[in-house]
């Protein structure tokens, strides 16, 4: 049965029995050879799963916690390996005892109906199965405490990038205070590799209810809580797109509060920063569309730098076209979907807080024409 096979293989990929106690105390940030092999096996399984579903394979978009590409995510995966190894051994031992007891001590067909010997307990045996678990718990606790300290108490190095993440119902606001950039839903950070470590430190706030920032391949999740500033950090070691989403139930569209983190080469990142620093272009060919924008309530909630629009409830639209998605990943960023979204947000993302402006079709076309120039 392929499904059972798949699950079995996947469990193998959890590397349950991969390493034992000692070497998991030694954290390495680079994937070992074994890890690379196991990673490939997992990609194979996922590929096979895609074939099942009859879809194209892109396993890099599977946000698995066992395919870490960032320093804190690596530390966690190592700890996870260690915990899985220990619990795996306990499982095998205790489950075997249970199976043995059930088979060995079942009542036989030729049973003589006498009662078995009554045993009420045993001091030494009880002591043994109390002390051994205590020892295991001590080891697990110490290892865990070490990783907590390593991740949570990490100092912010001088070259680190700082980003403010603000959770809204149901989208993400990213502000780069040192660079003066504001964007939404798609976070760009530089890769950290070689001699120059460039981690990104995020400070997390919420504009309304509790959210949680979770990109499994980059780090564990941290909540965004109103009236509380939390922090976390990532240090991605490979370029590419990493998917995540809000992990704390935050209302109607919790499911469509998707996160995309683009890890760029230092050059690409610098280029992206220069683009984002600019104010919006004033293309005279779409002046009519800009007028529609400026005369509609759009400006109450959105910012477009260089125009009168300075609202803070919705995403900054200054460089809208530099993003791949709309409505926090609910739609892809094409003129058609942009038009559908403006026309009726509630159809595209039921419950979304952006109101429909009831624009005439002609105005809608002008507006979309204007927005598509915001590169």
């Amino acid at each position, binding site marked *: 049965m392929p499904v059972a096979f798949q*699950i079995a293989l*996947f469990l193998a990929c*959890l590397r349950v029995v991969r390493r034992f106690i000692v070497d998991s105390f030694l954290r390495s940030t680079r994937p070992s050879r074994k890890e690379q092999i196991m990673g490939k096996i997992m990609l194979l399984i*996922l590929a096979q799963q895609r074939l*099942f579903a009859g879809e194209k394979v892109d396993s890099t978009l*599977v*946000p698995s*916690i*066992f395919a870490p590409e960032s320093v804190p995510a690596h530390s*966690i995966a190592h700890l*996870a390996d260690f*915990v899985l190894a220990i*619990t795996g051994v306990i499982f095998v031992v205790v*489950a075997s005892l249970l199976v043995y007891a*059930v088979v060995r*001590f079942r*009542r036989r067909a030729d*049973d003589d109906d006498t*009662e078995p010997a*009554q*045993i*009420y*307990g045993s001091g030494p045996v*009880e002591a043994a*199965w*109390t002390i051994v*678990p*205590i020892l295991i*718990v001590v080891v*697990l*606790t110490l290892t*865990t*405490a070490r*990783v*907590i300290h390593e991740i*949570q108490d990490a100092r912010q190095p001088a070259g680190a990038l700082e980003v403010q993440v603000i959770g809204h119902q149901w989208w993400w606001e990213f502000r780069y205070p040192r660079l003066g950039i504001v964007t939404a839903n798609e976070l760009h950070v530089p890769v950290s590799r070689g001699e120059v470590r460039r981690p990104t430190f995020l400070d997390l706030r919420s504009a309304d*209810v*509790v959210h*949680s920032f*979770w990109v499994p391949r980059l780090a*564990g*999740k*941290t*909540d965004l*809580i109103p*009236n*509380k500033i939390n922090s976390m950090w990532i240090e991605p070691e490979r370029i590419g797109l990493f998917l*995540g*989403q*809000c*992990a704390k*139930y*935050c*209302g*109607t*569209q*919790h*499911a469509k509060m998707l996160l995309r983190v683009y890890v760029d080469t230092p050059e690409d990142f610098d280029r992206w920063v220069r683009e984002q620093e600019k104010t919006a272009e004033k293309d005279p060919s779409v002046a009519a569309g800009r007028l529609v924008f400026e005369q509609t309530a759009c400006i109450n909630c959105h910012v477009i730098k260089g125009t009168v629009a300075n609202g803070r409830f919705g995403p900054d639209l200054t460089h809208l076209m530099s993003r791949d998605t709309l409505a926090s990943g609910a739609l892809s960023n094409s003129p058609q979907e942009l038009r559908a979204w403006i026309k009726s947000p509630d159809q595209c993302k*039921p*419950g979304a807080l952006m109101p429909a402006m009831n624009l005439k079709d002609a105005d809608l076309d002008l507006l979309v024409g204007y927005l598509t120039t915001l590169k």
Partner: protein
Amino acid sequence: MNGTAKTNEMSGALPLVSIAAPDKNVLDHIHAWLVTVDHKKLGLMYIMYGLFFFVVAGIEVGLIRIQLAVPNNHFLTPQVFNQLFTMHGTTMVFLVGMPLIFGFANYLVPLMIGARDLAFPRLNAFGFWLSVFGGLLLYFSFIGGEGMTGAGSAPDVGWFAYAPLTGRAFSKGHSTDYWTLGIMVGGFGSIATAANIITTILCMRCPGMTLTKMPLLVWLNLIMCGMVLVTISPLTAAQIMLLLDRFVGSHFFDTQAGGSATLWMHFFWIFGHPEVYILVIPAFAIASEVIPVFSRKAIFGYPVMVGATIAIAFVSMSVWAHHMFTIGMTSTGNTFFVVSTMMISVPTGIKIFNWLGTMWGGKLRFDTPMLFGIAFVFHLLIMGLTGVMLAAAPFNWQLNDSYFVIAHFHYVLVGAIVFMIFGGIYYWFPKATGRLLNERLGKWHFWLFLIGFHLTFDTMHIPGVLGMPRRIYTYEAGRGWEILNLICTLGMAVQSVATLVFVWNIVSSIFKGRRAGADPWDAWTLEWATSSPPPEYNFAEIPIVKSRRPLWDIKHPTDPDWKYE
């Protein structure tokens, strides 16, 4: 009538025997159930109430699983999906779990300690009806929750209802009010019943039954009720604060006015974590009766079992913030809760080992209750181990609020609690009705439920590891979650079939089941010393016991337990 009763009283016989009127019609029967203060009738009503809502919550989750079977599904709107998972969770904990455990405690505790009823029979009825009306109030939200604003009907804030989502600003209409009032009313019922059971156990044991000679089930229910008293109170306090916020304009959780979102989390989980143990300890209690009887051996390490349960009760009160590892506590705070959470696995492990020790060297009979008991031990093991994974805070930063957590706590709530409650129903059904449940249907029920359970919940760990958060009404294709979710849904279907078999078994066995007699399992505790079903006064003569297994002593006069205890 009055005269007869009086004569009976005077002659010293029990008056209840002669009052059974011959010509009762249906209305009389219903009336008798509605006004009863008999612990057995109330216990059975608790259990029926729990099973009814078990089916309701099952239907809710059936809809949820259909919605999640394929990516980008439009079977449910997000609003309805959010209401369904809120109602499913709330129902399962407050309207299924609590009534079922109180039902068992109500029915069994007086019988097992040789008493004629609980200490306060009227308070008992009061507690039951409060629970019922709490449940009805919650479900009335489907009709009355819209309020003036036309906002959603049933509550959609999740079963732990994090602030400030429950505030006026984010939850319009009255759905959240029904949620908080329903739980508060039910909570008062739970407190009343818990106090009642504690008093009964401490004051009404039959002669000879010292605390150390109580059946384990009684001990564990005593501990459970103590936990109810301690932990329902902070929940009620939090609900009152929330009501003040919503109606009077106070700012406990109103973050826009400087209130605290984490305050609610602390209050809720100080209740919420021990609540898991409140529900699972009665399952431990049932296992501690079923496993010895079907292994034909005394429970292994009785004092250690009691001690381990008390340890669990105490430690479980200091682990709540392991539900909150992601809220940005200090590393010291996180480490404290790692230590306390890991510690709780020690007494839990001890219990598993003691059940194994009970089976070891026995002669195991695989009747349906025992099958559920063995599955219970197996699931408890797995749930404990995934619990250790979640206790490792950094690992938890990944797994928290993912499908892995859902799989983990369903292993507790279904794999351990529901399995053992099924086992308990198969075990005590003959006592309550005088008829055995059908063994053949019982085996079908067990195996189908086991297969369905593992299909759903084993699989469900994996999407969590692959980054699927809980409480999302839909997901995109291409994340590696599709097939896994489909398997979960299939497993759910199998579990539904198993539940239908169970319901059919109950209905048909009530009328056609094999006659049980007083002691069908050849068991050892006092409830099997009286007839099936027991008379209203339980025991014509209050029994006198000398050991933990009084019926063993009677059955084996040459080798009684009291020689060894």
